């Protein structure tokens, strides 16, 4: 499942991060790595971007960018 398909309040484990190298590295550097737990805190009022909680801090990502992140163990 893609991170961008998660609903508000759902959590998941990151499996793989795709996309072009610059974006991918940026996402990794912010701590969204394979095995990291992410929680979708909310979507912006216009449904884009989205707010995530990773490693105890809040980060926002465009839905399109989150579409490169594969997750499983959704709960």
């Amino acid at each position, binding site marked *: 499942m893609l991170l961008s398909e998660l609903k508000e309040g759902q959590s998941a484990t990151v499996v793989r991060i795709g996309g072009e190298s*610059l974006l991918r590295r940026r996402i990794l550097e912010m701590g969204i790595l394979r095995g990291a737990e992410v929680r979708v805190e909310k979507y912006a009022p216009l449904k884009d971007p989205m707010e995530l909680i990773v490693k105890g801090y809040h980060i926002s990502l465009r839905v399109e960018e989150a579409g490169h992140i594969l997750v499983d163990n959704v709960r």
Partner: protein
Amino acid sequence: MPIKCLVIALAGNPNAGKTTVFNNLTGTRQKVGNWPGVTVEKKEGHVSRNGYDLTIVDLPGTYSLTPFSIEEVVARNYLLDERPDVVIDIIDASNLERSLYLATQIRELDCKVLFALNMADIAGSRGTKIDAPKLSELLDVPVVFTVGNRKEGMDDLLQQAIELAESATPAARTRQVKYSHDIEEAIGRLQEFMEMKAGGMPYDTRWMAIKLLEDDKIVKERLVAAAPETGRQILQAAQALRTHLTQRFDEDPQIVMTDERYGFIAGIIREVQSATVQQRVDISRNIDLVLTHRLFGFPIFVFFIWAMFQLTFTLGEYPVQWIGAGVDGLSGAVGAALPEGILRSLLVDGVVAGVGSVIKFLPNILVLFFCIALFEDTGYMARSAFLMDRIMHLIGLHGKSFIPMLMGFGCNVPAIMAARTLESEKDRILTILITPFMSCSAKLPVYVILAGAFFGAQAGTVIFGIYLLGVVLSIVTGRIFRSTLLKGADAPFVMELPPYRMPMAKSLLIHMWDRSKLFLQKMGKVILVGSIVIWSLSNFPRDVATSRDYAAEIARVTATADSQKATADGSERRRIEEQAAQAVSDLRREQMAEQTRQSYIGRIGRFVAPIFAPLGIDWQGGVALLSGFVAKEIVVSTLGVLHAAGESDEEGALGKALIAAGMTPLSALSMMVFVLLYLPCLATTAAIRRETSTRWMVFSIGYSTAVAWGMAFVVYQGGRLFGFS
């Protein structure tokens, strides 16, 4: 004993409390400038301690040292090239894991590092305990606890920094990130190759090997620059190793290495941090439940923006009036002190009026920057970008571009300076290029007069249409430039939403004043020169042959009135005086109109008249537009002068004079469109140059004027095709 000088650099993540620590360490003795060649703010401060003269340099806040963003390049180049004696890495204790990512990269740079574990109190209150001695031991780095907003630990920090700088031991290598076997082997081979091929490598070889495996463009360039022949051989070797690693891991080596750094950090975290907090259960999250709420988020945002506007342009208006009065007083005093003549005119109409017109903006700018500092320091700026990003992304911009663009409706100068909050340079340039299309408040008087005279009851609609045209063109421009001139991947919208914080008054004031000071310093010079040039153009040549001898006529009118007054009684005398005053001011106005017509600017106006002719704008309009370069308000007063119609006291008169001079509704519309779009005023131009470069300033002038001409042409000629006049 001679005073010893040490340079201490502060590094750290954005929102880690770096600025607070910097303000605490240096107080108000700071120097704000820009890093060479880029518009990233550089802050420096001096402190004396234990016989040392310490220079503290605040590096841009970054999450990493990969050279992707301009801030990262600046921070890394500083550490590499300036080699500060000590680097203090400010670590946000409540975000230890991510903070350590930057920390490990700084460690790899092979410089003396000291950790300031900041805000450990907040982390503690959230149930996290950090074993600082253990952290210090694992990474072999001294660690100092600090609480920035309570000024705790500052003395200790400086003390430790001095000791570290004086210690002879080079930074230990053993406690750096150790990569997996394959990567370490590649690093080793590359290092060996470098040491064998070339002795004097610009930087530490292990670090260079790591960067070459990561395909770091800047390091590659510098290597080739330092040793062209062997450099290329080393690059080839690195490329071969990269290919090998890519096959081995089925992944780009730089991704693997990022992953492994975090793996190394995870190991440290397990040992030093007692409880990991999964979620932020705090006030901040509750505030966000309201401020970024699906339904209430936007109305609240609009309210804040409205409040900022109100404060900037109404609260700021009072001091503006005082300053205006002060400038008037000054010009009155100068006028009274000097005999009538060219020097007085230069000082009063040129220097004082020109510089005064810019100083006048200072209160607005102070208030605006205070509001922006408030947004930034509380953490709301990130939320506003979060709310607006969807809309701004349509133009190819970042959510943060919204505020500068909106400010443009007030005044372009602070708007362009507000673009500083954008991190990506491309976003910043693009925002600066399209902001002048937001019709600023100084253009409004021009629309009011033209639309009022030619469109009567529809004036409001026409003016609204003009504003709308500006917005539409900014969107079109944004999209075009995004896909041509400023191409390249959009900066990813990977943005931290930091916890809300109570802003500190001192930091707000420092922020506000620093930026305003820049405005005064740089604008002042440009405006001074610009005002003098425009003044000279409209006042020279002095001794032109006029069609009538105005001085003699004025003298005759006065003499006649005087002789009539002698025989008249009370009410009759007043009437004669009024008539005479009216006649004299009419004559003066006509004299001025004729002089302006013959001045250099008038000649230029008639010379460029053919350019304006296809737009339906006569030469008087052309001159008015040229003089509007100083400030858009001047367009109206110049029109008044040229049509000898007096100024704002009789607006209707100017409208009538324009109609009499043959202006039609269509040419009025064409002129309004031109005023909306053409070259930004002097102060804005200076701001653009200050925030970008001379090249972008010239481009902005050329582009906006070309668009203005094109659009006005379309309006006028298109209108005529459809039979309007």
